């Protein structure tokens, strides 16, 4: 029997959905730009069964993919579970077998021996969904990606890249180089739980693994995202850590340790593993990156950065908590690494004082290249918010998208509404050859008062004007982690 009634977080807008759906010809307010032909694909989390532990992370819920198919101004929506091995096991048992986020030692005894030996079997493929080499796949950084049918979203199964991908894990943030067309991907904890091995791969346009590098991190850490330039790879290692001792003690995978420094690894793209150089700096959290570039001897990285623990569900052990001097909130920062310097320090600059969401994006056509605009959401407490209809969340929800001009130092904002919270934005170029920033900013807005989700589309060059279109779903969508725009020439959509 499925009973979420004892979960105090599973209420109201956040009560579980647990259904698959297809909506043809979605309702639209405004007009969907006719040049948007392709799909916005998102993945997030939905509990098939209640979690075993009250303080588990939402990141431990099953993967659920949603696809908004755009064609000539008409939008269809389809939502399906990612039927991982874990999903299938739970469904067969009609209960939650899996314990804490990425801790197989807390699993049901019926599966625990296998999941400890093969922790990648626990993956939920719930973090990102991208297309490469004509395939659509969903990923989570603790296991292999799962391929999905782009027409039906049926789960095809885990991907092995013809046996040439040897890491047990696959990051949720591969980077597709717009110049070479190759996908750069990697796995950390590559040889098993709490290992500090990192395996890095190049996968060509046709989906073939062409290169593998293996190296180690200074300490086991959440290397959730990386950056690439045309000449370098950039690996942030920061203060979340784990160990087999921690996991055997039954704790959630990550613990924050504010005593740990930040390491940033810089590796030439044409180099060997031994060419990796680690720079060292103060405690930071760099969960996601915007972009990086190489200018002469300098590698420049821009990211949303936090000085404190960004995830309260991955708390610090006693004595490892944040410094009282640490600045709270996430800000857009620039880090500069001088490869000619003999010192291992680096420069840091806060580019915008406004506190922003850690889910930031750019025009993906500019990955690894000099660029101008960064996009991310933020909570603006000065905008209207109807607490009677949406709860005591004024100033606590992402209610705006921002376009941050890194060259001019200015920002523009889109406001979603007085009962809305926004998921991660995605930039969609108006045309394949449009200049940077000429296009649309899209993302899911949850309407807490009307108990429904809406896909908003705004002109990225005129955010203050509001929507150009808002696609209305008659139900709530579950939490989203990441999403992407995939043009229709990239995949065989329906």
């Amino acid at each position, binding site marked *: 029997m499925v009973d979420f009634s004892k979960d105090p977080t599973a209420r109201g807008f956040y009560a579980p959905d647990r259904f698959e759906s297809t909506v043809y010809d979605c309702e639209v307010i405004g007009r969907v730009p006719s040049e948007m032909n392709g799909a916005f694909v998102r993945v997030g989390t939905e509990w098939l069964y209640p979690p075993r532990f009250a303080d588990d992370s939402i990141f431990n819920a099953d993967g659920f993919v949603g696809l908004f198919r755009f064609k000539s101004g008409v939008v269809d929506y389809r939502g399906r579970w990612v039927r991982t091995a874990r999903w299938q096991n739970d469904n067969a048992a009609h209960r939650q077998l899996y314990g804490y986020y990425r801790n197989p030692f807390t699993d049901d*005894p019926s599966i625990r021996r296998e999941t400890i030996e093969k922790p990648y079997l626990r993956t939920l493929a719930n973090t990102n969904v991208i297309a490469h080499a004509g395939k659509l796949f969903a990923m989570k950084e603790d296991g292999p990606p799962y391929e999905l049918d782009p027409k039906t979203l049926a789960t095809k199964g885990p991907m092995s890249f013809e046996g040439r991908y040897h890491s047990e894990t696959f990051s949720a943030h591969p980077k597709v180089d717009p110049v070479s067309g190759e996908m750069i991907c990697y796995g950390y904890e590559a040889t098993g739980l709490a290992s500090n091995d990192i395996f890095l791969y190049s996968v060509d346009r046709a989906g073939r693994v062409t290169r593998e590098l293996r190296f180690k991190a200074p300490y086991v850490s959440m290397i959730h995202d990386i950056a690439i330039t045309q000449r370098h790879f950039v690996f942030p290692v920061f203060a979340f850590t784990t160990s087999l001792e921690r996991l055997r003690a039954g704790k959630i995978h990550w613990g924050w340790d504010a005593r740990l420094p930040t390491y940033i690894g810089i590796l030439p793209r044409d180099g060997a593993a031994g060419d990796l150089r680690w720079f060292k700096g103060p405690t930071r959290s760099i969960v996601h990156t915007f972009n990086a570039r190489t200018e002469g001897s300098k590698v420049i990285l821009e990211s949303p950065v936090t000085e404190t623990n960004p995830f309260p569900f991955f708390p610090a052990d006693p004595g490892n908590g944040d410094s009282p001097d640490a600045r709270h909130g996430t800000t857009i920062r620039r880090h500069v690494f001088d490869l000619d310097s003999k010192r291992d320090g680096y420069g840091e600059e806060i580019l915008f004082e406004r506190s922003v969401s850690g889910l930031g994006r750019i025009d993906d056509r500019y990955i690894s290249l000099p660029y101008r605009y960064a996009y991310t959401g933020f909570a603006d407490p000065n905008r209207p918010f109807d607490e009677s209809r949406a709860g005591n969340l004024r100033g606590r*929800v992402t209610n705006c998208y921002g376009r941050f001009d890194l060259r001019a130092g200015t920002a523009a904002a889109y406001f979603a509404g007085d009962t809305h919270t926004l998921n991660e934005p995605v930039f969609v170029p108006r045309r394949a050859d449009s200049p940077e920033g000429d296009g649309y900013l899209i993302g899911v807005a949850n309407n807490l008062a009307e108990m429904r989700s809406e896909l908003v589309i705004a002109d990225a060059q005129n955010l203050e004007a509001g929507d150009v279109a808002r696609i209305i779903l008659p139900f709530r969508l579950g939490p989203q982690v990441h999403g992407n725009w995939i043009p229709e020439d990239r995949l065989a959509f329906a």
Partner: protein
Amino acid sequence: MRKSNTERIHVGESAAPRARLTRRSFLGRAASLAGTTTVLAALPELSPFASGPARARAPIVGFHMDHPYFDPSGTAEPYYPPSGTRSGQALADVAQIHLIGQFGYC
């Protein structure tokens, strides 16, 4: 390691069996301020609002990255969803047969 008897999510155990709701108490609860308050009110040992001798902080529901989360430390800023049916509160506490009997859904 936590005990393995965690088939269901644990927010603590109520010592008293839950009383059957009357229509008056149901309507009163539906008009209450917050879902969290309602949930915790059903678990008196864990209510942060209980009177009596000073006690350790009770777990609360916080809000982070646009989603509620369970905070065992009780130190986060609480999340209170809007009151009424859209909050999902109260209905979870009422047996379906009682609800139907009161409001004649069938």
